[in-house]
């Protein structure tokens, strides 16, 4: 198949499927439509990858009429935002939409003078392929998961009239838009896709139509509009300063004049990636159905933000902007990891962890060395797989248990063994070394450590944040693993469980085969962006100039260390003894003790959140102000240069 066809398939197939979804009210019909469509999408992505990776970047410029269509659609969306602002009486949305409505024509017709030909409009290099694979594979799996999830979700809500058509419309549409976004080289096209993702995001957050959902959707909207404004301003400045709105030209131009637009684009990326102080929209987005959280808010859409920052990284290498981006990202990584310690709602923990990991990717972009960029790209992949899967597992658990409180997930292993094992592997893969996320963390710390000067701050933030990560995952993970044996049958919806298990095996498999992954995907992406190779991969080891990482040996050792005892413990058949309760256990039910007046009292073992130290009330204002200061410093540093 030709490259053009594949690209248009990747972008337009989801759009077409989405429109079809509008007509389908029946769950079975949805499955019939979506399953082949999603498989096709995955195949297309793979085919494109097979074409691009060996042959180098693939460029594509659609007919000029499409430029006009895109321009018109920009204004349609803008009008819709204005309409939302007016009807919802939300000053921020309205205000920002108005600013955008003024700024966009000014930039488009004033600065750009109507029409600027960009060549190529789509530039598909290895980095775009990495993103495309993530979107098409992980995204498609999540769509399939949603076909199981949404009927149950609606059954739970007891809706009179199904709203699944709308849901799947926005949901599937998003995949195509996202593919377009990562392929786009023209900033105007990028802006268009960017706006559509914002729109999808808005609709999906408010899907449940509760007051909270509407409010949070509006918050997401205005925060994303901040990014849009910054982007439009950036486009104008870029054209003004450098005379181009092609990303490739901007990045490779090496002109100091483009630093300000690049900083503005970074700001746009930060808003999309929900970096502090914009993290509240992502937290609020957790009211949406879980597939939305899994798809938009962890594995793909928020990645658009960091993708942009990463994509532009060569443009600001070795500048103070780079350092400030690194410090900002590391700071966000640290502070959101600390904030996650104080959370007891599972989805909020996942959300904070997502923000933290995005911060880490931003930080990698800022460190801006071969190793750091490699770490950033690796993180995009590993995080998407693990976090998407964790969201899905938590969503199933929420549906089956009826709670998203970590407290209620205590002892899940006894009730939902398969789900728990999947979740535990997912968490371990987020947390510990032989797995990819931690590997990327290792690479990031080594990369940051290898820089001197102000990067000491980056390393410090990373070290603290990495310890905080350990704490909030561990205290959740450990609690799930044991509990009173309850004889319940674990319902296992095929697609939901199937996709979860696929992603689990993906997380483990990719981590084991990290060396070929680096050779095949990440090193080409690096060279596509103009960086050198980060690793010496000879002998299946990953050797950097100063560090050494033997994935296979580690995997063997850790697998032996974790799996063998687990197997042995399964074989322990003897009756379990009661726990230590100062000698006043009550016979029979677990965890009851004799308390006041000789009456039995149930011992509870709630988790620790240390909210007086890590609670939102204490940390959020602090982190928001600090992040704001860093952002101002970031922009000021660029302007004052």
């Amino acid at each position, binding site marked *: 198949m030709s490259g053009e066809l594949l690209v248009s398939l990747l972008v337009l197939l989801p759009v077409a499927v989405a429109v079809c979804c509008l007509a389908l009210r029946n769950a079975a019909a949805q499955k019939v439509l979506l399953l082949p469509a999603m498989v096709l999408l995955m195949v297309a992505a793979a085919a494109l990858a097979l074409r691009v990776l060996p042959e180098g970047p693939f460029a594509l410029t659609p007919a000029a009429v499409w430029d006009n269509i895109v321009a018109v659609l920009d204004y349609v969306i803008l009008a819709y935002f204005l309409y939302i602002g007016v009807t919802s009486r939300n000053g921020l949305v309205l205000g920002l939409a108005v600013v955008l409505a003024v700024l966009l024509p000014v930039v488009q017709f004033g600065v750009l003078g109507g029409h600027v030909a960009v060549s190529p409009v789509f530039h598909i290099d290895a980095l775009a392929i990495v993103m495309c694979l993530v979107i098409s594979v992980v995204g498609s799996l999540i769509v399939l998961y949603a076909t199981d999830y949404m009927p149950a979700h609606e059954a739970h809500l007891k809706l009179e009239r199904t709203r699944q058509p709308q849901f799947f419309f926005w949901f599937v549409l998003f995949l195509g838009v996202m593919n377009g976004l990562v392929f786009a080289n023209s900033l105007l096209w990028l802006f268009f896709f960017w706006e559509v993702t914002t729109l999808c995001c808005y609709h999906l957050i408010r899907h449940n139509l509760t007051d909270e959902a509407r409010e949070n959707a509006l918050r997401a909207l205005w925060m994303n509009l901040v990014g849009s404004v910054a982007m439009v301003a950036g486009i104008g400045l870029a054209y003004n300063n450098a005379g181009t709105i092609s990303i490739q030209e901007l990045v490779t131009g090496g002109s100091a004049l483009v630093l300000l637009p690049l900083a503005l684009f970074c700001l746009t990326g930060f808003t999309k990636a929900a970096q502090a102080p914009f993290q509240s929209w992502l937290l609020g987005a957790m009211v949406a159905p879980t597939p939305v959280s899994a798809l938009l808010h962890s594995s793909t859409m928020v990645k658009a933000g960091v993708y942009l920052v990463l994509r532009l990284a060569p443009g600001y290498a070795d500048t103070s902007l780079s350092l400030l981006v690194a410090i900002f990202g590391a700071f966000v990584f640290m502070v959101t990891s600390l904030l996650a310690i104080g959370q007891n709602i599972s989805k909020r923990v996942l959300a904070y962890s997502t923000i933290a990991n995005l911060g880490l990717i931003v930080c990698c972009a800022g460190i801006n060395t071969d190793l750091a960029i490699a770490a950033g790209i690796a993180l995009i992949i590993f995080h998407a797989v693990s976090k998407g899967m964790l969201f899905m597992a938590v969503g199933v658990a929420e549906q089956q248990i009826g709670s998203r409180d970590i407290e209620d997930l205590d002892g899940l292993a006894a009730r939902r063994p398969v789900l728990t094992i999947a979740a535990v592997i997912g968490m371990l893969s987020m947390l510990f070394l032989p797995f990819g996320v931690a590997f990327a963390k290792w690479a990031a710390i080594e990369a940051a450590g290898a820089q001197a000067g102000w990067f000491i701050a980056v390393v410090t933030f990373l070290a603290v944040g990495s310890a905080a990560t350990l704490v909030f995952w561990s205290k959740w993970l450990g609690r799930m693993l044991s509990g009173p044996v309850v004889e319940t049958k674990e319902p296992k919806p095929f697609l939901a469980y199937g996709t979860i298990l696929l992603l689990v095996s993906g997380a483990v498999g990719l981590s084991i085969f990290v060396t070929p992954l680096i050779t095949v995907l990440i090193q080409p992406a690096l060279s596509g962006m103009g960086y050198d190779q980060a690793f010496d991969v000879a002998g299946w080891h990953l050797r950097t100039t100063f560090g050494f990482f033997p994935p296979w040996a580690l995997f063997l050792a850790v697998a032996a260390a974790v799996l063998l005892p687990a197997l042995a413990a399964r074989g322990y058949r003897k009756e379990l003894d009661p726990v230590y309760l100062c000698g006043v256990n009550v016979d029979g039910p677990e965890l009851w003790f004799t308390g*006041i*007046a*000789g*009456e039995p009292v149930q011992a509870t073992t709630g988790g620790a959140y240390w909210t007086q130290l890590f609670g939102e009330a204490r940390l959020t204002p602090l982190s928001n102000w600090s992040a704001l200061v860093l952002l101002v410093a970031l922009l000021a540093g660029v302007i004052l240069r």
Partner: protein
Amino acid sequence: MQQVRVDRGADPVISPDALLKEVELLASEGARFTTMICLDLDPEFEIIYLFQKPTLDVVRLRVRMAKDEELPSISSILLGAVLMENEIREFFGVKIINLAIDFKCRMLLSEKSLQMPLLKVRPKPKLTGGGE
């Protein structure tokens, strides 16, 4: 030098109804609860309340009551009395009501212990096992 012998006649004797009022008065003068002593003078109980004035002086108050009469708890006025009231209820079966912390006659004794151990004359049926 402290006077060890107690002159019985010198103490005011009141009924359970008047107790709370007296205690409130004492409390307003800054007195605090020291202890209470229950005596099983069959067929009545005599309960001696000891209060301490901000000086070292002790004020005694005696309550005479029939065994099935109800005695209001003073723990709402002086929380320090709550343990002793529970103990007296447990040891003698004195019906003390409105306790701030109710140990349900299981403060010191277990259900297998001898109930109301300090009663001189044991009531025959029912009244054993002070628990509610």
